[in-house]
């Protein structure tokens, strides 16, 4: 394991302040009662127990609006090259890191994404147990983090902290902070394993999740679920786009031209496959004309192994944000409950 042990949580705060020397450090902080990604400058102590904010870090890596091209009054075009601020996200949970692995795979060839991603330093923070509405365990995305982090933190009950590194930048940051560390000995490794097992055991028993996932993945593609089931769920989708906006693995965008005088800007803006217009063709043909068709398509994308990323994990990372955002109570757990015969 590429990891070492810090004697105290205070050492982590030294790393955070060192990161803040040449980056904006962004961390979950409780604002008006709810966790929000907040620029902290590394000040104060890390909020170890603050849950993942409802709005994740996707908006930094894939902004809701990304200008890609500008033209002037002569019609000459130039690319809009982003100059992203250097940031460090400290306190990313396993679900969000698993989601960034999906984004990396999806946008790997895209220069706009690469520019933003290269400016972001990722510090993970392992969860000690299940959060409200989270089911990362059932979709193999947590509660302990895996790549792609630069550094990852696991708090031990005795006050020590295990720091793992996943990149050269992570190693450099660790060294740069000048904190003392010791190797991960057998006793600590055992403790880590116990912590992971304890975290896993803290999840509520939800047999419908496994049943729903199994039905979603039975051959042929989604065919185990009758069309009528989806058409019954469909009217509950108000097409608010909340799930796709908050989903940390949703990547769809549309492209809009914004003329200003004789010039203008072409920008990508977030889109949602749950909107009726998402796939409606100019000819009027619609591959998914009914709400149930669109709900099925969305959840198939999230819950089918056909969309497993390079890590082999599902497009859904179990963060539970869609269940919060969905006015129709058909977020991931809501839909799995329906598919798994729970309601």
């Amino acid at each position, binding site marked *: 394991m590429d990891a070492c042990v810090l004697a105290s949580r205070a050492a982590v705060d030294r790393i955070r302040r060192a990161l803040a020397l040449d980056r904006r450090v962004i961390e979950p902080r409780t604002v008006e009662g709810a966790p929000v990604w907040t620029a902290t400058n590394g000040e104060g102590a890390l909020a170890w127990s603050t849950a993942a904010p*409802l709005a994740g870090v996707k908006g930094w890596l894939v902004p809701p609006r990304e200008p890609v091209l500008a033209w002037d009054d002569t019609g000459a075009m130039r690319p809009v090259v982003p100059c992203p601020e250097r940031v460090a996200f400290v306190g990313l949970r396993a679900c969000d890191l698993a989601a960034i692995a999906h984004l990396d795979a999806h946008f790997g060839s895209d220069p706009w994404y690469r520019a933003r991603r290269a400016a972001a330093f990722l510090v993970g923070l392992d969860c000690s147990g299940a959060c409200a509405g989270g089911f990362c365990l059932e979709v193999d995305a947590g509660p302990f983090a895996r790549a792609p982090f630069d550094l990852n933190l696991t708090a031990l009950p005795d006050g020590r902290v295990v720091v793992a590194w996943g990149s050269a930048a992570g190693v450099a940051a660790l060294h740069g902070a000048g904190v003392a560390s010791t190797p991960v000995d057998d006793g600590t490794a055992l403790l880590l394993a116990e912590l992971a097992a304890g975290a896993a055991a803290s999840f509520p028993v939800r047999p419908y999740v496994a049943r729903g996932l199994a039905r979603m993945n039975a051959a042929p593609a989604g065919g185990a679920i009758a069309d009528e089931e989806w058409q019954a769920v469909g009217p509950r989708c*108000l097409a608010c786009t909340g799930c796709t906006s908050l989903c940390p693995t949703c990547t769809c965008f549309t492209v809009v031209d914004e003329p200003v005088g004789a010039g203008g800007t072409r920008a990508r803006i977030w889109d949602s496959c749950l909107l009726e217009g998402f796939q409606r063709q100019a000819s009027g043909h619609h591959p998914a004309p009914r709400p149930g068709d669109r709900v099925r398509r969305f959840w198939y994308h999230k819950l089918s192994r056909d969309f497993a990323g390079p890590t082999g994990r599902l497009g859904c990372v179990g963060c539970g944000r869609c269940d919060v955002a969905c006015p129709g*109570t058909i977020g991931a757990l809501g839909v799995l409950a329906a598919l798994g015969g729970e309601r």
Partner: protein
Amino acid sequence: MTTTTCPFCAVGCGLVLDVAGGRVVGVAPERLHPVSRGQLCVKGWNAAQFIASPERLTRPLLRRNGRLEAVAWDVALAAAAEALAAARHEGGPDAVGVVASARATNEDAFAAMKFARAVLGTNNVDHCARVCHAPSVAGLRRTLGSGAMTNPIADVDETDCLLVVGADVTENHAILGARILAAHERGVPLVVVDPRRTRLARAADLHAQIRLGTDIAFVNGMLHAIFAHGWEDRAYLDARCENVDALRAALARWTPDEAARVTGVPAAAIVDAARLYAASRRGWLAYGLGVTQHVSGTETVIALSNLALVTGNVGAIGGGVNPLRGQNNVQGACDMGALPDVYSGYQPVDDAAARRRFEAAWGVALPSAPGLTSLSMQHAAHDGRLKTLLVIGEDPVVTDPGGRFVARALGRLDCLIVAELFLTETATCADIVLPAASFAEKDGTFTSTERRVQRVRRAVAPPGEARTDWEMLEALAARLGRPMGFRDAAGVFTEMAALTPIYGGMSHARIGASGGLCWPCPTPAHPGTPRLHVASCVRGRGRLIPVDQTPPAELPDAEYPLQLTTFRLHHQYGSGSMTRRAPLLERENPLGLVWMHASDAARRRITTGACVRVRSRRGEVTTRAIVSDDVPPGVVAMPYHFAEASPNLVTNDALDPIARMPELKVCAVAVEAC
């Protein structure tokens, strides 16, 4: 990150604006908001788009040689002040008028009403509540003493029966509509009364698909059944209501069979609806524009009030009579007195004591006779009696009825001044256009449909030279020699609260700290009032008023054989000036459309997507058809958001005699393929 209140619809969801580089780049829901609880509808999720639209107005415009040209504020304000002064000089104070905005803040609306009354000296001030819930204000004030929603949205989770009349809640108040659907899924019976098969109607236990404009017959049929079966709340009627015997006597002819004959709904279904609602411990009754936008709008509101009173639901947890206000701050604009007959807090202008209070505070003599409604101002403009009109953030050319009349009437003004975000259809007709700040660019408050007063916070600077409404009104007042003394939004609120008992205990600081307060909140220690009429009605005893069925002003005939009704789409808001600048929203419904039943379509050889012409006695509009069982045979339905295919070119401007509400919800039309 700036926490504020969503500017679309009156549910009042909590919205967080994400700002980067001086621009609102994204939005997120407010996780712990008491009403929206981390959710938004599609309009809220797309709120960032219009704010930064390059089409925003950034400089004042002045018409010169027939064209609107950009000018300095000084020039525009001087021209506006001159036009207002000239009109007053020529025709007296009532030759000018102000149409305030149900989208702007309470502070803006209060400033608009003070500007009209104290600066211009006229009670000619109104706003679009005239075309949405004026009958609610008129009707419920007569029966209960207060014209607002009686119970909170949260009562949807506390009720035993949901009765929704003439409201497409999942589309127009989506977060509330979803809460109704969720309650229904938990087993709460849902009864929907609507001529259209809405999403809620399809889910409902009982959908009473009444003929257009027969609500009173339906409700009277229910009341007849309630009394016939002894489902009324006798103890409540004895203790808290008046005029019971008169109501019972008037209901005698409204047997379920008679109600069935008029409404087209089977008598058994009317009795079922009565049983579900009245035999439940509590029933949460909500209604929308399907009730109010009729010549019988006020009487229909009274009928619904009768229904809730007879069943003991007024003042009860999980009960109530709940008009679902349309625009984000239409409740607030009414509360602020942007109405021709009342000051803020519904204090009548013809009440000498109230008038003296405002005269003392403002140091001017105020007119005592109620002013003109917005539609009357249009007629006065048409007749030459009104010479200069200031329209703030409204687009009556698109949203008001009567064909081309509105544009023609506005065209006869000496001067039309419009304060707007965009060059709307109405702004295009203006002589002076003042660029306004959007909700994201100003501080203030909105009051939601449940009377919840919430903070609006400035996240970014207004584009270019745009200003908030109260700022431009203050500047205009100064030029007219009567400055209003407003320095910031909090100060406007403070003056308003001091003059408005129902807001008396509120301040920006207090509202911001508590996540909003529901009025009445008379003192700084008062916790606010989520539920009205708890111990007794605001007016004392609840008044039962017999009302009788009035047919729509225009019925179908051989020449115009179909009935047109209007409705709103989930993805659009009002005349679309904001939502149509959001590419995803605009993509969802790229056209003005008319929904029609397959039987009517087949007879005319019309298929989905076909170009059709909709004609009435007042005009015609060309659009495309959607063949759908959302509407019954004989009825066609059009959304009103699209200027290029506006149903208001054909709708009827016949008025409710009490509330002066035009009958937007029904007229006779012919439809043909073109």
